[in-house]
């Protein structure tokens, strides 16, 4: 007797469902986070044996909030800039991956693999050390301050990941679509741009947003290479307050809350889109 497929769809073939954070826990999460900060603040308070002359931790956090918040906005700026550059470069790299010319495809693929498998922090160092401090294009001199180098450094892995997302999306389009386009006598360029790509955009959006969240998380790496973003400022705040070590827990907790408040809605939106698109397909 020959093996025949089970009538029921074998579950192993189904892709794992995307993580689905429960919407109804949203409020509760905020409360828990606030609790966490308060708790760490009071814990730190209790742990500090110093006299009452020392200012309360919450007061200190409040005092430095404007400065820290400006630092945080800088992180967001870095993330947006890197995402923009990375997406443009990644789009171009992605196009090479679906090229019909094998050498172009190979070069694109090697580039993508190289930047995708390298740690982000290493790529950041890579950009910091190996980019010149200014670019000279003819008579034009563009200065490259550290933060701009960081932007470029972070856009490298973004580029590779965007290319991979694009490749994955194109691969997920049923081959029938290509054949249909082909049989309608579309040229290759038209096939890509008017048939395949429009269908890919929708599939690319959730992973692209996911990538953006990861990138946002990675902007703090810029502090390691000396950019004045929120983590650097946090260190400076702690120093300005006399190097109080008990300040560090609430300070870092506080920054975590900001990132959370920024990233969590994006994550929720991403999973919602993922689910919506999954149903339609």
């Amino acid at each position: 007797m020959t093996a025949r497929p089970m009538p029921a769809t074998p579950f192993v073939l189904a892709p794992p469902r995307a993580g689905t954070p429960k919407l109804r826990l949203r409020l509760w999460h905020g409360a828990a986070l606030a609790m966490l900060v308060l708790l760490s603040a009071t814990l730190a308070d209790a742990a500090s044996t110093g006299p009452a002359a020392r200012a309360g931790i919450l007061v200190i956090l409040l005092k430095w909030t404007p400065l820290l918040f400006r630092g945080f906005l800088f992180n967001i700026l870095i993330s947006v800039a890197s995402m923009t550059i990375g997406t443009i470069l990644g789009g171009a790299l992605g196009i090479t991956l679906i090229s019909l010319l094998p050498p172009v495809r190979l070069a694109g693929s090697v580039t993508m693999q190289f930047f995708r498998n390298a740690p982000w922090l290493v790529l950041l160092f890579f950009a910091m050390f190996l980019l010149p401090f200014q670019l000279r294009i003819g008579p034009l001199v563009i200065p490259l301050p550290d933060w701009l180098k960081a932007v470029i450094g972070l856009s490298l892995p973004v580029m590779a990941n965007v290319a991979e997302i694009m490749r994955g999306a194109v691969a997920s389009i049923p081959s029938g679509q290509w054949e249909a386009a082909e049989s309608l006598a579309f040229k290759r360029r038209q096939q890509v741009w008017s048939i395949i790509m429009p269908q890919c955009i929708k599939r690319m959006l959730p992973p692209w947003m996911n990538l953006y969240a990861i990138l946002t998380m990675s902007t703090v790496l810029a502090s390691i290479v000396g950019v004045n973003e929120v983590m650097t400022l946090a260190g400076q705040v702690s120093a300005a307050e006399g190097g109080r070590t008990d300040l560090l827990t609430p300070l870092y907790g506080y920054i975590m809350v900001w990132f959370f408040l920024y990233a969590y809605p994006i994550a929720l939106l991403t999973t919602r889109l993922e689910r919506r698109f999954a149903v339609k397909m």
Partner: protein
Amino acid sequence: MAEASPWTPDQPIIEITDIHKSFGHVEVLRGISLKVRKGEVICIIGPSGSGKSTLIRCINALTPFDRGSVRVMGIEVGAPHLDKLALRRRVGMVFQQYNLFPHRTALQNVMMAPIQVLHQPRREVEARAMALLKKVRLEGKEHSYPGQMSGGQQQRVAIARSLAMNPDIMLFDEVTAALDPETVKEVLVTIKQLADEGMTCILVTHEMGFAREVADHVYFTDRGVIVEDGPPAELFANPRDPRTQAFLSQVL
């Protein structure tokens, strides 16, 4: 073996008294009572959605019920601290979709529960499992994986898997419904063989011919109640209730 209360073979092996079950606002079982004696084969027939699956799943506590009582060999299934293992080693169940464990071979599927649940010695279990696979006529398929077998073969492995626990009662929930017509027969032959050996069987089935052949008693359910019951010869030949008549005229 410790029993909740003494049960002797002259008492009904299963005694269902007036059970009710609702899913949300829908009452799926609306007061069903029936008795099964040891060695009896009963068939439950009825239109789709009438609550047949729900009923037999109440017997091995896969679905909890709201009211009434189910006693299996003296075990009160609705009891708050039910010993599920004690119940389930007495009651085997075979499902429509076979539900074999796809990461294990046929032989391993049969051996898993006795070893992992009952902690019986592997050698003994293996010998018994081989014998059971032989009984369901699957010699040579011991080392095939579920994905490499036909539906009928998988279903027979599932039967052997249940039998490996040495149950006193077997529940079959539309076990041939997912099969190709030509493989239905090989599964039915296996069930018939079991029934002939004196296993107490409860079958939910759409195979009316088979029901007529093996059943000692047939129950017709509709919308959560037993509309009519009786020996198959009687029920199939002279259905009294108009609903039974309508149903039988459609399926026969």
